[in-house]
């Protein structure tokens, strides 16, 4: 958990790929799962590489991410 910088609320994700495009570390991608809305929600490939920059949350139109940052 120490390393979990972002929490993804999969059910809210609409797979618009905007966060994928903007993550500076290229950590995000669509998963193979299907959520209740019928979308493949976003997943993070490697939490440890996440800087917690919060850009994914900033650009996401559907409030999917919550970002934690070590001060």
């Amino acid at each position, binding site marked *: 958990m120490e390393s979990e910088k972002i929490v993804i609320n999969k059910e809210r994700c609409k797979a*618009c*790929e*905007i966060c994928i495009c903007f993550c500076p570390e290229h950590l995000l991608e669509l998963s193979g799962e299907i959520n209740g809305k019928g979308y493949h929600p976003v997943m993070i490939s490697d939490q440890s590489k996440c800087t917690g920059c919060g850009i994914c949350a900033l*650009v996401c*139109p559907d*409030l999917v991410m*919550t970002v934690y940052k070590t001060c």
Partner: protein
Amino acid sequence: MKLTAAYPESLTGKEFHYCPGCTHGLIHRLIAEVIDELEIREKTIGVAPVGCAVLAYEYFNLDMQEASHGRAPAVATGIKRVHPDRVVFTYQGDGDLASIGTAEIIHAANRGEKISVFFINNAVYGMTGGQMAPTTLTGQRTTTSPLGRSVESSGYPLKISELLSILEGSVFIARVSVHNPAHIMKAKRAVKTSFQYQLDGKGFSLVEFLSTCPTNWGMKPVEALRFAGEEMTKYFPPGTYKEVE
């Protein structure tokens, strides 16, 4: 551990019905975050439009009124005159504000009605399935401009921020875009400035958002952001158009 992005209290938590990648949701969030930051949730009353954001009253965790198409500024006027100490905002699309509601927005601005207007310019009528809006770009194809908007028949896209800036009652007018993180941050600052003007009792303010409609533009969401950032901003330059001391 510090939380840099949490769910704003001024949103109900209900999932948005917007299409994937539609920036309506993003703009809702920005407004809600600012309301939280200013701690004015309990004294804010919002007015929802007729347009894709028609259900905004289900998303904002505030007192809300649903206005008829285009009349949100009149409805907001009614509310603000009754409760001058509350914060009143409208959230309106380009069909709503720049077409059917032209008289209402011009006169609310000219009266210097002390409200904040959030104007979501996505260059199209989203909700009704992609008809031409007054802000549709020249040559842009929509269901009612199937060969592209013709200047000869429909004129040039209407520049609301420029127009309202020349009215003496407006105190803060800004056009912002939400196509990338830097612009999103600027957009949020503009929302805050607008509310601050209202809290200071100064006059009418409006923030125009360049917003996307991937569905009716026939684009992928990321493509749509690019279009907003590259094409729309050419004709609709972001910036602060008016800021009265």
